């Protein structure tokens, strides 16, 4: 069953108007009275379709409904739509910058150990005794920032070492030593909670024997730098999000003032 023009117009308006509750009921009551007045006036002029004439004069329900959009709400929605992609881009950008920075810091932390371990492996392969590649002073892994060297023979026993933790020479899991194979294995080694080491493990094979060289040093300074990088990144991220929000608001304000919800309102037709 088709609706009469006035009911159809009001139904379309109801569907589109961005108002709720009392405000919606009030506008609807006003428009209903208006349409009935207009239909009465058209009937008095002997119009063929008074209700249709009233609806025609009322205009497009979508245009009328759009006139009730709150500028503030539209501003917020437009600003949010502009800000969201910017926020995603900023998050991805800052996240990538942090990840790269952290990677560089962590990679740099291995450089001295790599050099020492490779040199020691060459010396051991050429027949130097394990004691010769280990410096004399003991390195307490829990406190010292110095580089420690441990030579492990093919049986997994410590051949020489200047590393000490709680009175013992600590060793990483045997799998980490075996993984060195013919190449270099770089690992983050935590011999006990709170003691983290950047460890480089290099295997050696010589006439006098074979084994692995483990060189490590504390990650404390690197982790402090990583924390500082994280704090800076978080600060930069928040500042960028805020700046993006301000720019989005300015752009949204410009958009709503030039092409906002009330664009085309009121549209006056020539008489």
């Amino acid at each position, binding site marked *: 069953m088709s609706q009469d023009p006035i009911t159809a117009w009001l139904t379309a*308006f109801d569907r589109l108007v961005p108002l709720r509750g009392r405000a919606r009921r*009030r*506008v609807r*009551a*006003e*428009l209903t*009275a*208006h349409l*009935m*007045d*207009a239909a009465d006036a058209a009937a008095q002029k002997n119009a063929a379709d008074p209700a249709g004439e009233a609806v025609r*004069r*009322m*205009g*497009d*329900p979508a*245009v*009328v409904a759009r*006139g*009730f959009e709150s500028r503030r709400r539209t501003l917020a929605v437009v600003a949010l739509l502009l800000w969201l992609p910017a926020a995603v881009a900023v998050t991805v950008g800052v996240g990538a910058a942090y990840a790269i920075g952290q990677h560089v810091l962590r990679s740099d932390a291995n450089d001295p150990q790599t050099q020492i371990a490779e040199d020691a492996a060459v010396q051991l392969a050429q027949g130097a005794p394990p004691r010769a590649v280990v410096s004399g002073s003991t390195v307490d892994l829990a406190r010292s920032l110095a580089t420690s060297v441990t030579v492990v023979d093919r049986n997994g026993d410590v051949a020489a070492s200047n590393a000490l933790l709680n009175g013992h020479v600590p060793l990483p899991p045997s799998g980490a030593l075996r993984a060195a194979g013919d190449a270099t294995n770089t690992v983050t080694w935590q011999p006990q909670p709170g003691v983290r080491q950047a460890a480089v493990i290099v295997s050696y094979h010589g006439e006098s024997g074979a084994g692995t060289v483990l060189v490590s040093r504390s990650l404390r300074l690197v982790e402090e730098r990583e924390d500082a990088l994280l704090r800076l990144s978080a600060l930069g991220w928040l500042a960028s999000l805020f700046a993006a929000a301000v720019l989005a608001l300015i752009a949204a304000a410009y958009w709503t003032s030039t092409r906002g919800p*009330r664009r*085309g*309102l*009121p*549209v*006056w*037709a*020539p*008489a």
Partner: protein
Amino acid sequence: MSTEPGQIQGHLEGLILAVMVSGPCHGYEVIRRLTASSGGVFDLPEGTVYPALHRLEKAGALASAWQTVDARKRRVYSITDAGRVRLGERRERWRLFSGAISQVLGAGAGTAEAGGQA
């Protein structure tokens, strides 16, 4: 003589306040007054006047209350003191704007006429 669509855009609120000065009225009557006072030149989609009425009320330029007029319940609007002040500002702005337009268009017409006579 007729207006082009959009020509009145930006002036509706001032026009509504102007027709309100003659007394309180409901939305339908606002349209009738606008059409009558413009000599029938303005013939707008009538629904568009309601968002403007609501904005003016929200801004304190109009006050409204339900009344039963001709056995039909209607929202009747009246201009407030703030609305009269606002109308005064609108009129002043329009006076300046229309004066400037007349001056420019008038000067252009004079030049064209002078050019035509030469």
